[in-house]
């Protein structure tokens, strides 16, 4: 049925119309405003439906911010209690295969359902541990995807006024400048909006962190993406937030410390080994073990080559004067001096 045949009641019941009247976004606003101008003969029906919906304002039964935070704490506690009591027994080897097969089947089915339900065709680029990739986006922007990361974007950017991508993991963005066409990067915790600039974005371990190298960006909490929650960053600013926090924190840093990985090197300044260990785990899929726990606190300053894992480990060993041994999937760090 065409909108031209709509009565006032039809408009009242139309999802897009309701959205426009009650909480319009740019899309519905543009559509209905131009539709209205193009069809003055429906003005009567539209204004009737509009006034009906406007009058139908339900009372808001609100949860105060404090109540919402308290409730969240209770949920967190209740959830932890329930996980502790549900420790699973170690499965026998044959069961592992059975479980793996069941999971594979489930994943396949879920994927099929998921794929069928996906309206826009998306391109997904994923990197393995220890692998980086350079991606050229349809608008001329370049994304250097760090290891163990995933970038998704629509195959075609039909909407020339908006460019959107989704990131899990870490990437360095060089955004092609296009006035009037903001480039938005979504992560679970924050959204970044820019027009043309360079920045490093990391969304790992239930935290999100962005460091701006060039230009200007706006960072919004993904949970409350309103205008007032947006934080403006200048070059050298770092903004980060952890899951469960409500406020994005900002500080000034040397961007090279965060964004050099895409130039095949790592720059450290008083960086604790514990943090370097996390980086090795995230980008190379290794487990890092400290034979001597005090080592984790020791700091490293310097520029190390990042082209090859073995060279990087050797460089860490040499500059810290420690012993680094690597098995297939674990790295052991130990003091060089005999105790």
């Amino acid at each position, binding site marked *: 049925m065409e909108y031209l045949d709509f009565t006032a009641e039809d408009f009242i*019941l139309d999802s897009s119309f309701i959205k426009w009247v009650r909480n319009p976004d740019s899309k519905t606003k543009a559509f209905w405003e131009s539709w209205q101008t193009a069809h003055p003969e429906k003005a009567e029906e539209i204004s009737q439906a509009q006034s009906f919906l406007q009058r139908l304002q339900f*009372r808001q039964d609100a949860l105060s911010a404090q109540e919402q935070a308290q409730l969240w704490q209770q949920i967190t506690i209740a959830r932890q209690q329930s996980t502790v009591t549900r420790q699973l027994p170690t499965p026998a080897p044959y069961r592992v295969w059975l479980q793996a097969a069941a999971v594979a089947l489930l994943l396949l089915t879920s994927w099929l359902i998921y794929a069928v339900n996906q309206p826009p065709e998306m391109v997904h680029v994923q990197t393995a541990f220890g692998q980086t990739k350079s991606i050229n986006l349809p608008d001329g922007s370049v994304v250097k995807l760090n290891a163990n990361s995933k970038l998704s974007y629509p195959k075609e950017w039909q909407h020339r006024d908006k460019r959107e991508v*989704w990131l899990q993991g870490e990437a360095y963005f060089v955004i092609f400048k296009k006035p009037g066409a903001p480039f938005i990067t979504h992560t679970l915790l924050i959204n970044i909006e820019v027009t043309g600039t360079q920045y490093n974005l990391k969304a790992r371990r239930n935290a999100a962190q962005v460091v701006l190298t060039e230009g200007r960006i706006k960072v919004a909490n993904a949970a409350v993406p309103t205008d007032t929650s947006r934080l403006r960053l200048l070059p050298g600013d770092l903004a980060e937030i952890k899951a469960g926090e409500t406020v994005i924190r900002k500080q000034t840093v040397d961007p090279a410390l965060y964004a050099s990985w895409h130039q095949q090197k790592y720059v450290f300044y008083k960086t604790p080994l514990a943090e370097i260990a996390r980086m090795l785990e995230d980008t190379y899929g290794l487990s890092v073990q400290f034979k001597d726990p005090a080592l984790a606190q020791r700091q490293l300053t310097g520029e190390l080559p990042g082209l090859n894992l073995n060279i990087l480990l050797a460089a860490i060993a040499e500059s810290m004067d420690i012993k680094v041994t690597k098995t297939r999937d674990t790295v052991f760090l130990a003091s060089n001096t005999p105790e």
Partner: protein
Amino acid sequence: MEQLQQAHSESFIWEEFRNGSEAAYTTIYNRYAANLFNYGYKLAHDRDLTKDCIQEVFVNLWRSRENLSPTSSIKYYLFKALRHEIMRKLNPRNFTSDLPDNYHFEVVLSAEQLLILDQTTAVKHERLLQELEKLPARQKEAIFLRFYDNLSFEEIAAIMQIEQRSVYKMIYKAIENLQNNLVNIKVLLVLLFISEARSA
């Protein structure tokens, strides 16, 4: 397109959550806690009971994350779970078959809206308010879900555990009651089916 993007981002969050992401879990809570409370309170009429039920929904959600199926509407999923939980608490003995005796859905029109209205609209508003109070609880709940939370007829049917056809009828009935100058009643019912079938 914007709606599609939104839908993708919802299913993206859901997928992440099913894979065990705490960040996705937090996002879901932050995004929907207020909405859930606003809806749940209208059913439960008790702040603490509503909060308990929301807690229950979220703890269960976390526990069963590995067994969840994909969804493109998290809100719908949560609303359904919350209603189920509230009904269970309100009517512990027999919550599956019938609505509890004390089921009523409390919607009150917001008063601040009146301030900007002129005299004639204020009168109209007052009448709408009276009419709304008179509606059966189910109709109130259905129009709330439709107009306040913009859920689809299909979703409302699943949440309220009734036939989709009944939802059309109910919402239509409610509008008919509220809007005195309704026309083309029979035509509308037919058109509703067509438009919903087309958009499905």
